[in-house]
C-alpha cells in the first residue's frame, strides 16, 4: 500500500467518523427537543399521561373520575360524597384511598387501596380529583380546597 493511498483511506475514515458523530448529535438534540415537548424535567405532569390501568374507565365507558383521598382529611370525605353518586354505566368513579374502611361505601363507585396507583397519581395533596377520558388518559386535575366549586367541577367536567 502506497503512502498516498494510506493517507486517503485515513482521511476517508476520519470523514466517516465525523459524519456519524454529526448525525448522532443531531439525533440527540431532536430527542431532547421532543422530550421538552412532553414535559419539563423535574415537573413530570400527571395530566396528559395514561393513568394506571387499575383506574381506567374500562370498555364502554366514556369517562372516569379518580379521587386521591386521605381518611384523616375531612374535606376528602366531602369530595367522596359529592363524587360517588356520579358513577353510572358511562362513568367510572374510583377513589384511591389509604384506608377504604374509613369511607362510606356507595353502590357503583369503588374505593381502592392501590399504593402503586396512588403513588403514581398523588401530587403531594389530597383531595385531588382527576378526570380521565375513555382511553384512560388524565385530561385534567384539580386540587380541591374549601374554595373550590365542587358541584361546578364535577358536573361541568372541567377544573374550577
Amino acid at each position: 500500500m502506497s503512502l498516498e493511498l494510506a493517507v486517503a483511506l485515513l482521511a476517508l475514515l476520519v470523514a466517516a467518523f465525523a459524519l456519524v458523530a454529526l448525525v448522532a448529535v443531531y439525533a440527540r438534540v431532536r430527542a431532547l427537543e421532543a422530550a421538552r415537548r412532553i414535559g419539563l424535567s423535574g415537573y413530570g405532569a400527571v395530566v396528559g399521561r395514561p393513568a394506571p390501568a387499575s383506574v381506567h374507565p374500562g370498555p364502554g365507558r366514556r369517562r372516569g373520575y379518580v379521587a386521591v383521598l386521605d381518611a384523616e382529611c375531612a374535606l376528602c370525605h366531602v369530595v367522596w360524597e359529592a363524587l360517588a353518586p356520579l358513577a353510572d354505566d358511562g362513568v367510572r368513579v374510583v377513589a384511591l384511598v389509604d384506608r377504604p374502611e374509613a369511607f362510606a361505601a356507595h353502590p357503583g363507585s369503588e374505593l381502592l387501596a392501590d399504593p402503586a396507583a396512588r403513588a403514581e397519581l398523588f401530587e403531594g395533596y389530597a383531595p385531588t380529583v382527576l378526570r380521565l377520558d375513555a382511553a384512560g388518559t388524565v385530561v385534567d386535575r384539580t386540587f380541591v380546597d374549601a374554595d373550590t366549586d365542587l358541584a361546578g367541577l364535577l358536573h361541568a367536567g372541567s377544573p374550577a
Partner: protein
Amino acid sequence: MTAATAGGVETPAGAPPVWTTRVAPSGARVALLVPEVLGSLRWYASTRFTGPRTARQFFLAPRGEHRVIPTHVLPGARERRVPLRGADAVLFEAADRSDSALVLVGPHHEATTWFGGPAPADGGLSMLEAFRFADDPAGATLVPASDLLLRQSGVSLIGRGDRATLVVRRAVDALPTLPEWAGLRVPAGELWRADRLLSDTASALVSGTVHQWRYVLAGQSAALDVVLHGPESGRAPIGLTEDQVLGALGALDAAWVG
C-alpha cells in the same frame, strides 16, 4: 432608627403566644412566636434569583391570589394554564402585551414572577427548569435546580393581617440594615424603632402614636420588621401605649433554621 426605650414593660392580657413554624422559600424552617396583639396573619414570601443572564424575583402568596390578575391587575389578560406535577404554571399576558406574569400554583401556595413586557415565546416554561417548586401547608419552597447556575437571595417571610405587617429575614441578611448602636434588650434580641416612609398627610395622622414607627427586632438567627396598622391605613388606632406595644414586641421571637 433609634433604640426603642421602655419604662415599665407590660404584656397585654390574653392567651400566651405559641410557637408556629413556617417554611421560607429557600426551604429554611422559621419558628415564630407572634404575640396576640399583632392579630392573625396570612403568610406571604419573597425571594430573588440571580445568575448568568438571569435576574428574577418571585412573590409567594396563599393559593388563589392570582385570580385577581385577569380581573384587576391586567383586565382582559390572556390566560394559559400548563399542568405540571404538584402545581400548575399559569401564564397571564396583557391584551396589549405590555406586561405578563407567570404563576406557579400549588395546592396551598403560589409563586408569581412578572416579566414587564410580552410573555416569553415558550410562556416562560423553559425558565422554570432552572427552579424547583415544592408546596407544603407551612409554606412553599422555590429553589434553584442547581446552585452553580443561580444564586438565591433576598429571602423574606411576610405576615400580613388587619393589625400588623411582619417581615422576617435571616439575621445575616438584615445585618447591613441594622443600626450600629445597641437597641433595647428584649428576650429575643435587640429592639429598635425606625421611621416609616409615609406621606405628609399620613405622617400627621400617626404623629405621636405608636403607629409613627416601625419596630425592628434582631435576634441571633432572624430579624423582624413590624409595622402596626393604624389611621394611616384607614384603621382605628391600636389603643395601646408605647410601653404596652414594647411589652408585646418583647414577646415576639423568631428562629431561622437553614
